[in-house]
């Protein structure tokens, strides 16, 4: 929704200068009055955020420790960044990403409370309780006759839109983006170029903190840019005949593609610059910021690519629609133009008048319903029929017939035990496989096979598994080139040993990596 009062009005039918009404008027002119109205509306957009902190005392429980406005802004932030070309942000994803911030504000509180706070803030920003799911602020202006008029300003911060899969997704409105970054209702193109030039300069000077801020702002603009474009494309998709197919649209798409190519080049240049900054940076803080910047710019590039894909798809889509509609045979008679003669004029009417034609259409256009008539005899039967018992548990499952599988193991449990004892080597004294085999052969004729198998297995020790499971020791085998002389086995005389693993260190590593 654009702020309507932004448009300058013609002075038009103003009272003659020097009249009593004009003299009593406090505002110097309509322009100043509109400026005030604009600022009042901007102020109103922030009200729901302030309201969050005011209303938290009304929640049942101890919620004083949460900075609700901060959570609210973070939520708007997350929705804006997660907004895609086709759909909005997924509600659960937004709530999940909001979680760490909420949890950090009150670390001692249970997770369920954190989740509740996240949901409450998001619902409040959507304003779930109201039927419009929006906000309304009242502001005053002077009309053309100089009379003071109170007006309602309706706006939304986060709106719910249908997704292609039938789900409900979130999108931030223009008002919300304005609240978030401020002064964004400028020309998107020029604003973006400015941000990028600024970014480049900042990176060259090594001021990464500022550069990151600029990059984030650039990304908001990219999102906003994609959003406006999405709307325009969606509209053109629905409305083929309104589009000048001969000249305008092909030109426009070409222009848009040039535009994106240009931006793409620019951002790739920035990316190269930051990568260099990241790799050369000595200070860990600088390194981290540079790495974050790389991610942001990468995301910008991704979004441009997405935009480009949509632009390329637009052409064939228009052609297909054109064909479909051009070959439809024109009708012989002429009917009512439902849109031009009914819908459009109705939408222009004030609501109290518009109800009449829509009511007439409803009364005549909904069809008929046959009234239900009940005989008393049927009613008695109906009322006395016992309710059908619901099957809650479903059909009974048949007991499965289990067949005992024959034990066809090559080795017994005792043999495995013996082999493991044999291979339980002290970490400082590895042994040759030949020695182990000889020892095994003394105990059991079959045991050498198992020992050999385990030793070969240890030649490629499962290091990854041991690391993940935090094991303290690991059996390994190494081939140093010595051939194995044995009457049953051939190959290399492996050195078999135990390696001690740093379980504590590994656990710490795992935590870092996670």
């Amino acid at each position, binding site marked *: 929704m654009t702020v309507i009062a932004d448009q300058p009005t013609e002075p038009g039918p103003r009272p003659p200068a020097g009249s009593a009404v004009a003299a009593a008027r406090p505002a110097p002119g309509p322009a100043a009055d509109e400026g005030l*109205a604009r600022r009042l509306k901007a102020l109103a957009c922030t009200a729901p955020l302030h309201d969050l902190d005011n209303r938290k005392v009304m929640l049942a429980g101890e919620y004083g420790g949460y900075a609700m406005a901060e959570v609210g802004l973070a939520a708007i932030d997350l929705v804006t960044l997660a907004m895609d070309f086709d759909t909005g942000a997924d509600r659960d994803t937004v709530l999940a990403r909001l979680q760490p911030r909420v949890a950090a504000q009150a670390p001692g509180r249970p997770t369920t409370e954190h989740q509740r706070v996240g949901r409450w803030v998001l619902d409040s920003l959507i304003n779930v309780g109201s039927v419009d799911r929006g906000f309304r602020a009242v502001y005053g202006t002077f009309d053309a006759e100089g009379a003071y008029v109170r007006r*309602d300003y309706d706006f939304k911060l986060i709106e719910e839109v249908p997704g292609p899969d039938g789900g409900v997704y979130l999108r931030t409105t223009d008002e919300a983006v304005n609240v978030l970054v401020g002064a964004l209702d400028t020309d998107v193109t020029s604003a973006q170029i400015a941000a990028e030039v600024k970014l480049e300069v900042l990176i060259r000077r090594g001021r990464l903190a500022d550069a990151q801020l600029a990059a984030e702002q650039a990304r908001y603009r990219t999102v906003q840019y994609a959003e*406006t474009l999405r709307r325009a494309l969606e509209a053109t998709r*629905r409305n083929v005949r309104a589009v000048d197919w001969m000249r305008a649209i092909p030109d426009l798409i070409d222009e848009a593609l040039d535009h994106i190519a240009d931006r793409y080049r620019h951002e790739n240049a920035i990316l190269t610059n930051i990568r260099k900054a990241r790799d050369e940076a000595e200070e860990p803080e600088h390194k981290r910021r540079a790495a974050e910047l790389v991610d942001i710019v990468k995301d910008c590039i991704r979004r441009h690519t997405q935009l480009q894909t949509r632009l390329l798809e637009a052409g064939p889509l228009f052609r297909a629609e054109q064909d479909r509609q051009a070959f439809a045979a024109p009708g012989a008679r002429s009917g009512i133009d439902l849109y031009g003669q009914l819908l459009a004029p109705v*939408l222009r009417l004030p609501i109290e008048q518009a109800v009449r*034609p829509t009511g007439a*259409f409803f*009364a005549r256009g909904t*069809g*008929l319903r046959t009234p239900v008539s009940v005989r008393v005899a049927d009613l008695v039967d109906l009322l006395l029929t016992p309710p059908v018992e619901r099957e809650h548990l479903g059909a009974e499952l048949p007991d499965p017939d289990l067949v005992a599988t024959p034990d066809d193991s090559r080795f017994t449990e005792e043999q495995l035990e013996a082999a493991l004892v044999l291979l339980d080597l002290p970490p400082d004294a590895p042994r040759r496989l030949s020695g182990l085999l000889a020892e095994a052969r003394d105990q059991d004729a079959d045991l050498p096979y198992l020992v050999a198998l385990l030793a070969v297995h240890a030649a490629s020790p499962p290091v990854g598994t041991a690391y993940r499971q935090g094991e303290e020791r690991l059996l390994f085998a190494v081939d140093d080139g010595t051939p194995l002389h044995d009457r049953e086995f051939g190959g290399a005389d492996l050195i078999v040993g135990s390696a001690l693993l740093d379980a504590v260190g590994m656990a710490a590593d795992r935590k870092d990596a996670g």
Partner: protein
Amino acid sequence: MTTHHDTSWAPETEPAAPAPITPADVADAARLVSFGLQAKLLPARDAEYAELVRRHREDPPFARLADAVATGMGLVVLEVSPRAGMAVAAAEDSLFAVRMGDYSRRAASESTDRFLHGLAHLAVAAMAFPRPEDLADDGYLGRITVNGIDSFVRQACRRLEEQAAADGDNTDPQSDAPGLEAAWRVWARRTATGATKDARRLSGSTIGIVAKAVLFLVDSGFLQKVSDDAGGTYRTTARYQLQVRDLAGTAAMAELLDLGVVPVSDGTASLLPPDTGDDLVADAGLPFHSL
């Protein structure tokens, strides 16, 4: 109430031996009307219905009798044909008429909701028959989606908003005169959809309102579901075209004329007036036409 069927047949030139009307004829005529009341039933699916429709077309006295039965019950006969069956509509204040208060409890008390529900029905019709020819062409089958209708109305609202902004009008309604708020704003400010606890459609949202209208029209035998795509995809039936063309459209138009709004049409579609000039979407960054 008379219909064109009463007058369409030629006056009887042979006064001799008009077949007397028997109670069986009346029963058949009433039977035909009762078939007509089952809006989803088609003559193609029921041999008896098809036979009665054939008799209505070939036997003028029987046709007059059936029409008289319908009129007496408070019904308007729109057409009797093999494709639509006996298409009857409820006359004003008829026992069969649908009342807004029964349709939606909220709409009974809230005038904005009454408007939204009515507009949803109008929008369904406008999307189903986008061009005047579509409404006139008996062979035309309209195809609509629930989400499509909502975005269609929103687009129309956005257009009006842009127009108002371009004219420098302040469309924010006065707080003490909510009835003067422009109708398009009511739809635009209502949420399109919303998450609910039980994963159903939010009934007060515009998509919920459109979905209700569409489901109701399915029950009336006016729409048939095609798929679940885009919130539900439906196609129109012959009955819907008749109802909109012969009754609803003219009734709404009469109200508009009564309000002093005289929409003029030259018979061509005005749904998509060509954009000429420099009406580009503000701040779009790209010179796309605003639609």
